[in-house]
């Protein structure tokens, strides 16, 4: 008897689900300080329009999206995706092609933010950082970052080939504009790995974005590469971490909709909302990542602007991540990196 009543309840719940799904959407983000800023800038204001936002965190594993799409059981509606994955996923049919007329005027956005399957959410940068309380005169260039005589101590680097090879080449004297040209050749890749090898004994690897500020504060490393927004978040808690913008590599994160999403229209509406100048400006006030909607910049004060990777002073000596290069060479270089790192 108890069993059968359970069954009735379960069946009722199942039949109710589609009705509920109309009024809520599932938004997937990368968690941490970034998720908090999204909650304040995107989710909470959007819920006032009558749609509940269920926030889910992930670490960018595309396998989860692939399984959903392949089994035709898509439960994620708007997903934050890194640029290489959005391009690859678009080619391989993981994401819906977007109807830009429902999102906004393409001309309002940075050119890089407009793609077939993805809408730029924000611009972020991988930069060098150090603790201003412990190191008065910090590194000025990547060559300084590599200089273990002048700055003894460990360096935090993100585990993987991406960014580190670019930084190594810049430390070896390659001009930012030539980095990808050099890296594309066998000799250039050898040179980058050789330069990375000079630091090998002094590297502390990090994987999650929250780790490098912790390393700096705990004194585990003297300097580190880091996502610029995480430094901003730590400084809001009273730390004095410094960023060196020279030779930083900036990139965008995108909204994408998994292919076959039954809730696609609602997801598009949410993405359109999150791409408005107001929502984008509010996001930038909560974490120091640059808006992709150009009109958002006018709504920000000078202090906020000075911390964004998109501000002219910070972007002057920065480098844009070369998507095509990493789409082609990524697999090979990552495997070589794995071999280099384990031996």
């Amino acid at each position, binding site marked *: 008897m108890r069993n059968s009543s359970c069954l009735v309840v379960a069946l009722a719940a199942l039949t109710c689900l589609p009705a509920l799904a109309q009024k809520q959407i599932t938004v997937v983000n990368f968690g941490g300080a970034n998720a908090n800023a999204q909650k304040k800038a995107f989710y909470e204001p959007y819920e006032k329009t009558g749609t509940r936002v269920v926030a889910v965190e992930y670490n960018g594993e*595309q396998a*989860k999206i692939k399984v959903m799409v392949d089994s035709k059981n898509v439960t994620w509606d708007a997903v934050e995706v890194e640029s290489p994955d959005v391009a690859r996923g678009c080619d391989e*049919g993981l994401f819906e092609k977007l109807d830009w007329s429902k999102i906004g005027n393409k001309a309002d956005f940075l050119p890089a933010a407009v793609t077939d399957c993805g809408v730029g959410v924000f611009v972020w940068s991988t930069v060098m950082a150090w603790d201003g309380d412990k190191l008065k005169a910090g590194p000025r260039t990547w060559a300084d970052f590599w200089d273990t005589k002048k700055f003894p101590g460990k360096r935090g680097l993100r585990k993987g080939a991406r960014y580190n090879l670019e930084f190594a080449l810049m430390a070896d004297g390659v001009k930012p504009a030539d980095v990808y040209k050099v890296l594309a050749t066998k000799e250039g890749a050898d040179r980058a790995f050789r330069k990375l090898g000079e630091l090998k004994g002094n590297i502390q*690897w990090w994987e999650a974005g929250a780790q490098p500020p912790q390393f700096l504060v705990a004194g585990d490393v003297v300097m580190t590469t880091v996502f610029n927004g995480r430094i901003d978040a730590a400084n809001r808690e009273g730390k004095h971490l410094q960023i060196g913008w020279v030779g930083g590599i900036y990139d965008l994160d995108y909204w994408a909709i998994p292919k076959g999403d039954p809730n696609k229209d609602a997801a598009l509406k949410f993405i359109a909302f999150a791409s408005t100048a107001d929502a984008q400006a509010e996001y930038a006030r909560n974490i120091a990542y640059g808006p992709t909607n150009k009109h958002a910049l006018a709504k920000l004060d000078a202090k906020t602007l000075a911390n964004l990777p998109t501000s002219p002073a910070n972007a002057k000596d920065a480098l844009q991540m070369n998507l095509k290069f990493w789409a*082609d060479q990524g697999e*090979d270089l990552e495997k070589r990196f794995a*071999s280099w790192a384990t031996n």
Partner: protein
Amino acid sequence: MTAASAAAAPSAADPAGLRRALARAGRRRQWRAFALTLPLLLFLLLTFLVPIAALLKRAVENPEVARALPRTVVVLADWQHADVPRPEAFAAIVADLGALSDSADAGALARRLNTEKPGARSLIMGTYRALPLEGTSAATPAAQIRDRLLALDARWGETAYWEAIAKNGSRWTPDYLLTAVDLRRDAHGAIERVDPDQRVFGGILLRTFGISALVTLCSLVLGYPLAYWLSTLPPRRANVLMIVVLVPFWTSILVRVAAWIVLLQSEGLVNHALESLHLIDKPLALLFNRTGVVISMTHILLPFMILPLYSVMTGVPPSYLRAAVSLGSTPLAAFARVYVPQTYAGVGAGALLVFILSIGYYVTPALLGGPTDQMLSYYVAQYTNVDVNWGMACALGALLLAATLVLYAIYRRVTKTELSLG
């Protein structure tokens, strides 16, 4: 049927009929027993054998090129690899790519070829997007199509990309399995070692075996005396203590790993205790390195060593040891020469169990180890979740499976017994 059996009613005068009836009854009993185990067999088939078969199939499956480029594969069949293929190959690839209805097929093709030759991704996708070539049709001469394709992307003039296509024309490939052991096929199909800077899995496999062997050894050193002590106690007390051994065994593995993080961190209980005893001046690094992984894995796997040892030891008559001592042996020599050899079966079973379970460990090294302590399963997860290269993930899984089977075969060879778990 019933009439027939009634007619052949057994009687002492008809031994053949009796034999038949007996055999029939025996068969019926067998069928009934089989029917009773059928649910279990079906369950095993569905949850164990079918997934393993699917995994092995995935490790050798290679459908992308054959599906997307059927015409090109045919044209390239007689290609000599020396120079750029004949113009018909260019016409065929244009026709093949143009005929793909779903861009996802082109994406899958680009991904597959890019693992073979970096750069193929942009070449394939760029060409796919540029199709159809303006001013060409099916009737355009092949040479003209070739020139148009070369003008579109000069990389079509490099043999490496064509080699990648020609090599993967078949629906099945040994490439993933070869990569899993740091080998590759060259353009002509000969097997060779990969370049030193691309060799990864050999080292990781060795590391996996190394960590597993160390964990097995630690479990044996800790488990043997404990099992011996338990076996000498009266059954009632032994049972109580056995529950103490089994409590961690019944606790979730994540809980135990989290507990070890609390204990082993530099501000943790272990370091505090050692410091307050003045045994060390500054905290030992016990976490995020090999030490933490081995400590935690030993703890988790210890019951798998103790249980088979205990069951073997309780079967060893204590009188043998007493006899040896009364015949003049020292207690230690008697233990080593009389008692220990009788427990070899338990040592073998326990060591094999612990070792086989160890080589598949993922969670513990991922949470307690550093980058140089990750075992093969970590790379299975990496290829599954991050790279979405499931062929490679399955090949590494197959490698683990093969290692397990080989170990089991060696065990049977050496001990000449079935695995006995008491």
